[in-house]
């Protein structure tokens, strides 16, 4: 937790009360997730009771069902596809965004703000606007149901965010330090490795985590452009939209397992989450 702006409050009791309210609201917001986690460890019959069975016996059956040991489709291909799509697109985003951010901050091109805002404006173009031509293009070039098509699209989806974030991180590197290194005879690779990288690395890591989250979560492109081969984890989850008898524990296990990478990445990037989500506008 940041910000040690300690403003001493006179009313100690009021402070305590408001602290309790904050705790209460935190628990209310977290309750659905806690309940999802608990239900995922219940048997299907215990999961579907009214009133809810809070203290029912715990079992791993929901997870066994989800991972396909009890019959049904295995989620592994979808999980692997999502991992490939998210990691590869994040890598491409970094490869494209790092040089771009360099040209927008450390040694800026003319009218660099205009370029920055062009990147931002592409983020505001709704996905549905380009979906049909992309679908027709993929159909005609045999790229349907191909995970690499998603990699390209996810790269374009996250590139503006990454350029904005990294531009703001690289801008934190003082020009004077770079100039001093240059005067001392350091060449560009040395300057990048010794001066720029140490200051910008935490920001670059956070950018990568946020891009990973957005790619992992994406549904519309994946739903339209993939089938049986390149299906991603969110598409796999859409298989649970219609009820299939008693299946709550399985749904909860599936939702939790598929959300775990995002929860982990999100908490790892917690400090820079705001900056990423606001496209670098707020730190």
């Amino acid at each position, binding site marked *: 937790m940041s910000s040690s702006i300690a403003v001493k*409050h006179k009313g100690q009791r009021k402070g305590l009360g408001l602290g309790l309210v904050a705790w209460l609201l935190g628990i209310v*917001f977290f309750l659905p997730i806690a309940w999802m986690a608990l239900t995922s460890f219940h048997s299907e019959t215990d999961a579907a009771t009214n009133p809810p069975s809070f203290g029912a016996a715990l079992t791993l059956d929901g997870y066994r069902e989800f991972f396909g040991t009890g019959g049904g489709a295995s989620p592994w291909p979808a999980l692997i596809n999502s991992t490939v799509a998210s990691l590869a697109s994040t890598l491409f985003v970094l490869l494209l965004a790092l040089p771009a951010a360099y040209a927008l901050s450390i040694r800026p091109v003319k009218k660099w703000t205009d370029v920055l805002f062009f990147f931002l404006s592409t983020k505001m173009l709704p*996905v549905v606007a380009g979906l049909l031509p992309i679908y027709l293009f993929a159909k005609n070039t045999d790229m349907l149901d191909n995970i690499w098509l998603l990699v390209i699209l996810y790269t374009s989806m996250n590139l503006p965010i990454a350029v904005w974030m990294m531009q703001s991180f690289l801008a934190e590197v003082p020009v004077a330090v770079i100039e001093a290194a240059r005067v001392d005879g350091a060449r560009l690779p040395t300057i990048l490795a010794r001066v720029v990288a140490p200051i910008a690395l935490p920001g670059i890591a956070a950018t990568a985590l946020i891009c990973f989250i957005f790619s992992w979560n994406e549904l519309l492109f994946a739903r339209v452009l993939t089938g049986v081969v390149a299906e991603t984890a969110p598409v796999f989850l859409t298989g649970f939209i219609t009820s299939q008898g008693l299946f709550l524990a399985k749904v909860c296990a599936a939702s939790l397992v598929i959300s775990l990478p995002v929860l982990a990445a999100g908490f790892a990037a917690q400090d820079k*989450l705001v900056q990423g989500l606001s496209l670098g506008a707020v730190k």
Partner: protein
Amino acid sequence: MTATTTAQVATTPVRTVRQPSGRLRAWATRAPLLPALIFMIVVTQLPFVATVVISFFDWNSLYPKARHFTGVDNYQDVLTDADLRHSVWTTILLTVTVVLVSLVLGLLLALLLDRRFKGRGVVRTLLIAPFLVVPVAAALLWKHVLYNPEYGLLNGLLHYVGGPQPDWISNTPLLAVEASLVWQWTPFMMLILLAGLQSRDQQQMEAARVDGASDWQIFRYLTLPHLRRYLELGALLGSIYIVQNFDAVFTITSGGLGTANLPYTVYQSFYQAHENGLASAAGVLVVIGSIIIATFALRVVSSLFREEAGRA
């Protein structure tokens, strides 16, 4: 990132390092930018141009031979079709409701979290968690685990107090979708507003307090004006994401019961009805709507950007 988050927005002092001029030099400076720029233009702008072109054709992909130019007929159809008009209205209602409610809740939570109390870090983590559930998973959680009329948690809890046992999704479908989105987006608003709160001028606040200003006066005359930009930013970014929402509508109601918003309608009209021309026209309309929001959004971002550049 410093501990006392002093609202730095991309600090940008003038960074003109003097270089020997010349065309080669300029291109060397531009070179690192080009791959990203060209990639974005090819992948995002070209398909949109294609969408605009297709929107002027009568084109059902089941009858490809019958494809022909129809001018603005598709737009007329979209704007006069009752279902499509309804989905425009649904999109507006959904976006405005979710953004406003999550903004108010987010402000409340941010104000609570801005104070010091025991376990503040834990509460912050609990509150962020809903935003970090995969959207489809969150929608499934609400649909099956919370809303289910027979064994969902909501009716389970109502059971204890002897309350009614409503069928949430059938009775109030749009509200059901909205509630799940508010749950996911409130943390987003809270994070942005919390950053805003923590960037207030502490000396000014302390001075006001010494001068005898009440908590309410400080909130009304110092905090709220300072937060205005952050509220705008949260509202506009939230709108951009929620206007495009597909996951929740697709999962919770499958666009039924009058909850189909524009992205869902576009998806359905070409993916299920194979009406390419109509879908494209609807897509272009979504873009026009987004451009209106985006113009404001860009203005807000750019003013924050300039303000910080000036402060640096």
